[in-house]
Every structure is written in structure tokens, then in C-alpha cells.
């Protein structure tokens, strides 16, 4: 059981030009095993919100909770996948996936087995000994995904994970993520500016607006699982939801 909760969270940064409010009064809950996306325009504070849940930032006001406990700092229980991958260049693919397990002191034999399993799952077995610089963007993000999932996290925090990929690779990775998630069902908070991506993956989509940077609307996504990207995206219902969110976002800007 893992739920995420934000209670009247505000985050401001001090700068020479005065205080900047990155997140203004956001309350939200992500239920256990729920897949929730946050969409919104650039600068609406969606990434900051994710970083608050990651424990990389502390809120200025309000509380950020996991299972009712205040988040004090980063933890592999809340693993993260980053838009710019953030792989460790000096480690091989295997070494990157093993990083979290090493820090946890998982014994070598078990570590190897778990890493190999994940490499197999994301289709990188043949590239286990390659360095990140030798991989394409899609493969790098597969490493990022395997690194996060290898620590068996309670929560997956994903910050526009497919935003740096070309359209075709993005579609492939979206469907792989769908399969993975429908298989395992961890709690996911997923940040994106891509409405279709949010609708395809999520149980619920939170729409954030800019000025004030707050959640202005919640859209429940009722599509049945397992979902299949291309079929789903061509249905009239999908188009209706897309338009609804789109209109709402336009009103926010």
C-alpha cells in the first residue's frame, strides 16, 4: 500500500528578481497502485511538484506525504525516471541498473540476477556491457526505466520520461511502459506536457494551470485495460477526452 498526498503545498524560490512561486496551493492524492499524470504548460510547476515527492525539494508551505508520513528526503522507495535520462556515463548499462541495488547492499549474486532480469525485460541483454554513450535515446531511457524498477520501488516518479525521444520511439516506450505497469501496478506519478500520452497511460489526469500554478481540473480516464495505444487513440471517446483537456489547457494560458 503506497499513497502519495500533497496538502496545500506551496513552493517558492528566492531570486534576485523577487520570489518566484513554482507551486501555489496544490492538494492531490495518488491512490495505491494508481497511475496519475500531471499535464500542464511549461513553467506551471509540474516538475517541481514531482521533485517535492522525490524529496529533492522541501515545500515552503503545506505537507508532502507518502503513506501519511512527511517526506524528508530522497529514497529509492520513490524511484525516478528523468527526461534527460541522467545515466551514469562511467558505468555500463549493467552498472547503471545495479546502482540502486548496490547502495542498498543487495548481495552480488542476487543483484546480478535481478539486473539480468530487468535487462531482459527491457530488451537490453545484448547491451549489458555497453556504456550509455553508445546507446540511442530510446535505449538510454530503457536503462533509466530498468534502473528505477530494479530497486523494486513503491512509487515511480516520472518526469517527462519520453519527452526527449522521437515520436516513433516514444510510442514504443509508451506501450512498453503500459505493459510493464499493467503487469506490476506500482503507484505512478507521471509528468508530461503530452495530453495523448497522459490519456493513454493514466487512470487519472491532473491538469495544472500557470498563474496560479495549481491543479485546476481532474479528469478520470475510464478506458479499459489492458490498453493498446494505436487502437485507443483512434476511438471517438479518446478524441473527446483529448479535446476536453485541450480546451481546458487553452483556457488556462
Amino acid at each position, binding site marked *: 500500500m503506497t499513497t502519495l498526498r500533497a496538502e496545500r503545498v506551496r513552493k517558492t524560490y528566492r531570486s534576485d528578481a523577487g520570489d518566484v512561486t513554482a507551486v501555489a496551493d496544490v492538494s492531490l492524492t495518488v491512490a495505491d497502485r494508481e497511475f496519475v499524470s500531471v499535464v500542464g504548460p511549461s513553467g506551471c510547476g509540474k516538475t517541481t511538484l514531482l521533485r517535492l515527492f522525490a*524529496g529533492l525539494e522541501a515545500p515552503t508551505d503545506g505537507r508532502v506525504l507518502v503513506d501519511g508520513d512527511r517526506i524528508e528526503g530522497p529514497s529509492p522507495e520513490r524511484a525516478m525516471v528523468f527526461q*534527460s535520462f541522467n545515466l551514469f556515463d*562511467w558505468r555500463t548499462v549493467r552498472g547503471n541498473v545495479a546502482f540502486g541495488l548496490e547502495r542498498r547492499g543487495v548481495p552480488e549474486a542476487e543483484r546480478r540476477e535481478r539486473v539480468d532480469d530487468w535487462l531482459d525485460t527491457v530488451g537490453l541483454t545484448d547491451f549489458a556491457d555497453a556504456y550509455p554513450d553508445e546507446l540511442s535515446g530510446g535505449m538510454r531511457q530503457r536503462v533509466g526505466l530498468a534502473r528505477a524498477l530494479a530497486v523494486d520501488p513503491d512509487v515511480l516518479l516520472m518526469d517527462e520520461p519520453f519527452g526527449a525521444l522521437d515520436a516513433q520511439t516514444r510510442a*514504443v516506450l509508451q506501450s512498453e511502459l503500459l505493459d510493464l505497469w499493467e503487469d506490476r501496478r506500482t503507484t505512478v506519478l507521471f509528468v508530461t506536457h503530452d495530453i495523448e500520452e497522459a490519456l493513454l497511460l493514466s487512470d487519472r489526469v491532473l491538469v495544472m494551470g500557470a498563474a496560479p500554478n495549481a491543479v485546476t481540473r481532474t479528469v478520470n480516464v475510464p478506458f479499459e485495460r489492458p490498453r493498446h495505444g494505436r487502437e485507443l487513440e483512434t476511438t471517438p471517446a479518446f478524441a473527446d477526452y483529448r479535446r476536453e483537456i485541450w480546451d481546458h489547457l487553452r483556457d488556462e494560458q
Partner: protein
Amino acid sequence: MDHASEPATLAADGSTPATTEPMTAMNERVRYPLFGVGSLALAWELLARLAVDGLTPLSDVLAAGVGLVASGELFVALAASLPKLALGYGLAVAVGVPLGLLMGFSSTADALADTPVTTLFVTSVASLLPLLIAVFGAGIGFYVVVVFLFAVFHVTLTLRAGVRDVDDALVETGRVFGASRLGVYRHVLLPASLPHVAAALRLGAVRAVKGMVVGELWVYAGFGSLLHGYQRYGQTDSALAVVLVLMALSVGIAGGLGALERRYAPWHHVEGGVR
């Protein structure tokens, strides 16, 4: 082109794994520098033979170099100079690497060390030579200190700049995946800095050779006394041969350090090794 959807196809894509790097790329790494050196050598020879009177032709210099080896003078100079170089450079590395890392990692350490290090960095070491003789005498200590001073600040500041350059996002990623405060240094900042250590060591080595020659020209010894002797008696060919040997020494040390880097920081070379 992106084959991310099909890893099996990617394996066939020659540009991807470093192990299947095309042979032509390997050859270019050797051929281009050879071409550059060859052109320079040819230009030198032609200029000296056809145009510039005072310039000794390269072939004469090389012949003098053979004589230098045959007479054993080169080995006497090497035996005299290399220990000073090794000691001075070793000290510079022993001080510069930890100091550079510390200044890069900690803003407090940087604030404390910045002014003295930068001041000494911009000071001409050559102008300090009379003072250094007064303090350290004219023995081996003098040369070691000169080599040390020539190299240490370059090592320190190159490394500091490199460590500063490590992406903060990697540090955060390390923390997200469970690295402790100390673990972030050990498992993220230190390995991420390793290529910069290699760059600092290379620059330091080249500076150390310069320091050695300057010291030995100030108080004649080793290569310095060779150079001085030949120049004084007008043996330009031999003097230039000594210069070539010194160039080869710098290039050789830098190349050896480069090989070490490829061995211990291979990730930095996977894309053509130009970064």
C-alpha cells in the same frame, strides 16, 4: 535513425557498439597526426636547404641526435633530469589532485584556497627562481621545487574546473537511488571527475617538463647543461636535437597518460575519443 524498438537491429548498426568501430577511424587517429608531423618535417628541411641560411636542416639535427645517443650524452642527461622531473611532478600530483578535487567539491574549501592558488597560478615561476635558489640552494631540492611549482597550479585549477562541471542532476540522481552523503562523493562525483583528473595530469606533465628545463637552464644540469653547452659552442644541430628529445619526452608522457585514461576511464572515449 532510431532502431530503439528493435535492439537486435541495433547490434547490426556499425555506429553503435564501440567494439565494431570501423578500422578507418582507428587509422585516421594515427594517420592524420603522422601527416602533420611529416609536413612540418619536410617544410623544415626544405626551408633550411633552400631559403633560410641560419636554420639547421632537420636531417643534420637528426644526425646530431644519433650522435647524442651514440656518445651516451643523452642517457647521462636523462639520468640527471628524470629523477627531478619524477619527484617534482609526483609532488605536484600528490598536492594538486586532492586540492583540485577539494576545491571542486566544497565551496568552503574553494573560497579558502582560491586567492592563494590563483595568485600563484598567475605568478611567473621564472621570476621566482633567484628567490628559490636562496631558499633551497642549488641542489636537487631547487629543481624539484621548480618542477612542482610549474605543474601544481595547472593540475589544481584544471581539476577544479572539471569537477565543477559535473552535472548537478547526476548528484540528485545518486541521492534518489540511495547514495548517502559520502556515497555521492564516492559513487558519483569521484568517478564523474576521473576524466578531468586525466586531463589535469596530462597538462601537469607537460608543464613539469618545461619546469625541469627552465630549472636546469638556470642552474646548469642535465638537459639544461647540454643545451647551454651546445649553444655556446655553436652546435645548433645538437642543441636542436636536444629540443626534439624534450618534445618527444613531453609527448611520450602525455601519450602514456592518455593510454592510462583509456584504460581506467574508457567511457570517455567511446565516441571517437575527442571529448
